[in-house]
């Protein structure tokens, strides 16, 4: 789904680094990304590739030690370097978050109704009673049965899937423009996972919320996303509409990721999944080179001398940062 309307969220050249005892660690380097109204963008990559840091930096949720440059605009308003009070108004109201671990992400000593109501009390100036009533509606909206009873339960009394639905109810309470879902299904069973993704899709359809979904699970991406951003070692290495990416991955890393995940049609036992050798590097500075070169089967001197630009292929909105992109023949990289 490509929408011609102005993006609700514009990330331009976002870089994040953290000072540590052993020197600076660069977590995100020059990430740019648009999120159109009602669009679901998936962000994939291995652990440590900077996807969560990117997500957290959108609403300024990183610790104070983080050094952030670049620009994050919500409906044109700059958020990087914005005042804390301005960011607080954005958080929960315009940009809402769903986190990975629904057990630890909910406060164990407050009822779920209270935790949902809190957002409404802060942003919509609702009374506690009105907020509680609205919480019941929200719980119903995210598919929790007998919401009127569940509103007074504590997180430990709910299952993992229910807890994640509570998280979603909390996130959409104020009808945010952007929902950032950081690994929303990783801690859940596959069946529960499908339910959660359905809830997210419904919310997009009904409320027009734009969703940035972060995951390392390509299955989730294929299921829900309109567009995909592939990150590697803090950089965006490929960006494409979801079908295009799965059919014709351009970057060698994307191709590697795809061939490392099981797909229907390839037979278990006869086809071994291909792994990508090596690990994501931890970088103190971002080199002027392809950061994937050390793990790439196609790397040569060019790759180590200059960082490849994120370039479009044949006028499409499919871009990749690779000196030696895979040919456009479907699924060449995965045998």
């Amino acid at each position: 789904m490509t929408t011609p309307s102005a993006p609700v969220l514009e990330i331009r050249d976002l870089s994040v680094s953290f000072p540590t005892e052993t020197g600076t660690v660069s977590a995100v380097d020059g990430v740019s990304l648009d999120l159109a109204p009602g669009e679901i963008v998936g962000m994939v990559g291995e652990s440590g590739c900077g996807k969560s840091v990117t997500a957290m930096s959108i609403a300024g949720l990183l610790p104070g030690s983080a050094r952030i440059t670049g620009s994050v605009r919500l409906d044109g308003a700059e958020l990087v370097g914005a005042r804390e009070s301005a960011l607080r108004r954005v958080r929960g109201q315009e940009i809402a978050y769903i986190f990975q671990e629904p057990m630890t992400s909910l406060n164990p000593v407050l009822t779920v109704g209270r935790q949902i109501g809190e957002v409404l009390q802060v942003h919509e100036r609702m009374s506690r009673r009105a907020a509680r009533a609205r919480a019941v509606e929200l719980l119903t909206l995210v598919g929790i049965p007998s919401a009127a009873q569940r509103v007074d339960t504590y997180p430990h009394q709910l299952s993992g899937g229910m807890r994640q639905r509570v998280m979603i109810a909390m996130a959409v309470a104020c009808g945010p423009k952007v929902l950032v879902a950081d690994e929303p299904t990783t801690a859940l069973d596959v069946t529960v996972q499908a339910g959660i993704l359905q809830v997210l899709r419904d919310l997009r359809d009904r409320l027009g919320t734009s969703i940035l979904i972060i995951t390392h699970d390509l299955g989730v991406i294929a299921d829900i996303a309109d567009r995909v951003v592939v990150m590697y070692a803090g950089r965006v290495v490929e960006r494409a509409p979801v079908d295009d990416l799965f059919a014709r991955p351009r970057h060698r890393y994307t191709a590697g990721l795809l061939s490392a995940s099981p797909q229907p049609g390839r037979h278990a036992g006869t086809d071994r999944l291909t792994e990508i050798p090596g690990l994501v590097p931890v970088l103190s500075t971002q080199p002027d080179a392809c950061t994937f070169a050390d793990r790439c089967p196609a790397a040569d001197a060019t790759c180590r001398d200059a960082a490849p630009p994120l370039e479009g292929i044949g006028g499409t909105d499919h871009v990749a940062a690779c000196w030696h992109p895979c040919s456009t023949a479907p699924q060449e990289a995965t045998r």
Partner: protein
Amino acid sequence: MARYLLTRAWQSALTLLLSTIVVFVGVRALPGDPALALAGEDRSPEALEAIRRHYGLDQPLPVQFAQYVERMAQGDFGVSIRTGTPVSSMLTTALPVTVELSVLAILIASALGVGAGVLAAVRRGRPAEWLANGLALVGLSVPHFWLGLLAILYLSVATGLFPASGFVPILEDPVDNLHHIILPAVILGTGLAAIIMRQTRSAMLDSLSSDYVRTAKAKGLRPRAVITRHALRNSLIVVVTVVGLQLGGLISGAVVTEQIFGLPGFGKMTIDAVFQRDYPVIQAVVLLTATAYIVINFFVDLLYSVIDPRIRVTGDPA
């Protein structure tokens, strides 16, 4: 909940019975003969025999114990061997002093300790944390009898801000009562405040880096709400545990503090009784202390379930 309460009450009663036996046997195992202490100059065998008979000390131990429990059940703790006054009337004058001192000390220590602990965690790595840590170290390492003496020296004797000793019952003159008891209470509370501060600080550091605090921030809550409603509420579980465990230390601290400030409380009564081998009084005070312990623990348990719903024991499975 009712079932839980019943079980806990039953356990408490059993503990109380056991402590009664331990106290009774323990006191009699102490070296020294109370009859000798009472006889004074006249230590003829006949006189000693008469004293023993009068106080029931000639009976076999089980009989003495049975009589003791029976009297106690009627609220009769016996008569002080030393002064001849009923122990119960001694308790009614001494107990309020100690209770007031301890409650005040706990309140002061909790307020200071939790406040400083939260501040130290929130302002981590800044001067406020160093100050709080430094004060806690002083509070922990300086024995409070010495601190008490210093306080008397500088705040009472030198400047006359507070009375050095003595006590006025709260019903007689509440203001004067507070004036007399505030200094001992602060001194008694220092160690506890330091422990509470350190526990609060580390518990707060844990909760501040937790996922639910991140969620609270992502909701756009004000820092004050994030700290109190989300982080502190979760940290209090640890704090309550520590306070509960430290109450024993507080009771023994109260004994010393009362001695220093000359407060006519439970502690002074205990020390006097031990030196005089005043069996009925020792039995009463130790038993009462044990009871206080058991009751306090019971309430700490209840408090847990108020703070943490995961500990709440309900009849219906959720």
